[in-house]
């Protein structure tokens, strides 16, 4: 039952980490000096009634430790306060944004993983060849160029052919058939997703390549060759399966970076997701939004990390602790 220990241990770590994130969030915004930050009730243009309601709801007149308990309680009920910018509940706004962020980030990340693994495997298979050098150098460059620069380059290159910003064509009537909207959103998603893919795929290539090189040197690969299996089968069926284990770990570790990249990408392409919401929150000094966005992104990354841990456990039964 040592495997179960592993799962419990990782689950516990995820829980503690989420709790730490929540606490840090409280400290950053309420306890550290800075008046605008500490006072959640100072919603601009708010009626005295709303202000008073917030004051009591979040206990802003109470001592800090009591505020912390109230904050935890509110959070447990999904209450993150009121946005300074438009007086809507933060949780509603952020959930709507999250719905836009997820498809774009998923598309970008999945294509990055597929492209990275594919080029990495080919590079290791044909090591030392011209395609290997080309793909490795390309991967290093993609890793080195700033995300926002890659986005701007795509904007310049595809200006006119692909939509440059937003998520859908504002002139498309809602009466249009559903699939037309879907195609429209898809078209808008291409540039942001490709930027995210470019900025993340390089590390997948490099790691897959080195992991494959190691695996191809294993004895069982030699055995497979000795049995006379075709090279293609050895590489894709025998080696890749084992070589992908480090890639799973890498995906988990890169999640934080992917989320950061997503923020930049959303800003460049005005993709109405959580990153853009946080960016505008900075401009408008909308602290509840900023706080909520930070919390949601952090907790998502922690949960996905836990998911990767479970996946790793599933893939590699040798893992025990």
């Amino acid at each position, binding site marked *: 039952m040592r495997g179960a220990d592993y799962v419990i241990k990782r689950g516990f770590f995820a829980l503690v980490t989420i709790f730490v994130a929540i606490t840090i969030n409280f400290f950053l915004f309420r306890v550290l000096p800075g008046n605008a930050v500490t006072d959640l009730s100072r919603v601009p243009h708010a009626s005295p009634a709303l202000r008073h309601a917030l004051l009591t709801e979040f206990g802003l007149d109470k001592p800090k430790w009591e505020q912390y308990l109230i904050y935890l309680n509110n959070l447990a009920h999904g209450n993150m306060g009121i946005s300074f910018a438009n007086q809507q509940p933060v949780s509603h706004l952020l959930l709507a944004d999250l719905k836009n962020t997820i498809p774009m980030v998923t598309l970008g990340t999945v294509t990055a993983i597929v492209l990275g693994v594919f080029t990495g495997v080919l590079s290791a298979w044909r090591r030392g060849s011209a395609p290997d050098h080309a793909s490795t150098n390309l991967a290093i460059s993609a890793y080195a160029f700033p995300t926002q620069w890659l986005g701007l380059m795509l904007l*310049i290159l595809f200006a006119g052919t692909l939509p440059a910003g937003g998520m859908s064509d504002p002139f498309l009537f809602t009466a249009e058939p559903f699939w037309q909207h879907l195609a429209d959103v898809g078209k808008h998603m291409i540039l942001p997703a490709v930027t995210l893919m470019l900025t993340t795929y390089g590390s997948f290539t490099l790691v897959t390549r080195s992991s494959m090189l190691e695996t191809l040197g294993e004895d069982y690969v030699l055995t497979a060759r000795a049995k006379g299996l075709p090279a293609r089968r050895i590489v894709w069926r025998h080696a890749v399966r084992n070589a992908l284990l480090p890639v799973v*770990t890498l995906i988990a570790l890169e999640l934080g970076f992917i989320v950061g990249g997503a923020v930049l990408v959303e*800003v460049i392409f005005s993709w109405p997701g959580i990153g853009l919401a946080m960016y505008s929150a900075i401009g408008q000094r909308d602290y509840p939004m900023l706080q909520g966005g930070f919390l949601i992104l952090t907790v998502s990354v922690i949960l996905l990390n836990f998911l990767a841990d479970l996946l790793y456990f599933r893939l590699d039964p040798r893992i025990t602790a």
Partner: protein
Amino acid sequence: MTLPIQDPSLAAEGLGVPPRRAGFLRGVLRERKAAVIGLAIIAFFVLLALIAPLISPYSATAQTCKVYAPPSASHWLGCDDGGIDMLSELMQGGRTSLVVGFAATVVAIVIGGGVGIVSGYFSGWADTALMRVTDYLLVIPDLVFALVIADIWGPSLFHVIIVIGILEWTSTARIIRAQVMSLKQRVYIKRAQAIGSGHPRIIVRHILPQVGPLLMANTVLTVAIAIYLETALAFLGLEDPTVITWGTILEHAFERTAISSGAWWAIVPDGFVIAIVIVGCFLLGQAIEDALNPRLKVAHLSVRRWRIRPLAGRGRDAI
């Protein structure tokens, strides 16, 4: 002077003589072309940053040509939205970006090295506590965290340096900790303990010199990450708006319609200098790490976090 590590396989089994710092770097440079290229790139940009005021053709703050003037014989890289010469601006921006990169790295390496050594050397509860903090920071999305802190503190160069410094020490701490834990088992440390050397003395005299080269590799790699993060924070408007960095140049180009004006020269060269510096750091750091002992099994992980090191295919096949 002979090479400290002649045969990587010796080091692989922990038999290699621990490298001395200066001689070690020279050895790496002699052995690996990538290291020479990397060092040359870094040296070139540092030199350029130092002599920028002497050689920059125009002022980096005053208008010397038309708004978004295309590249010409007198303005090699054209001009930006304020009619400022791009080449001069890039040189000035490089000065600040490199200062931010190096300063943030110093913070990160001091924290990371300190945490790694304390954690690895003393183990016990200190180790547990420090590693929990490290694990936590490893998971957290760093750009998002930096964005929140930088926003609360207000935009300034100093804040950006501190924010990057306190976020990017984790991988260094992990790697140094692993190394120190293995060093602690070596006979010469046991001997030093047996003759009554105190902990501070052992750390300073016996541990620190041994992790020196590893710290060096991490320093170089962290510089790349710091510069990368600085450009991202600047792009999101969290940099002091009055300073010129490679990050703010991109931000201004984006904010001030360089794209719709077709002024690619305000964007393209900036990305290239950033990428070249990062590749330079990557090549040098990677080469040093490769030459070092392969005991760091945390290796085959992230490029940005726990550094990737080719486990097979050293030398010619190494990335």
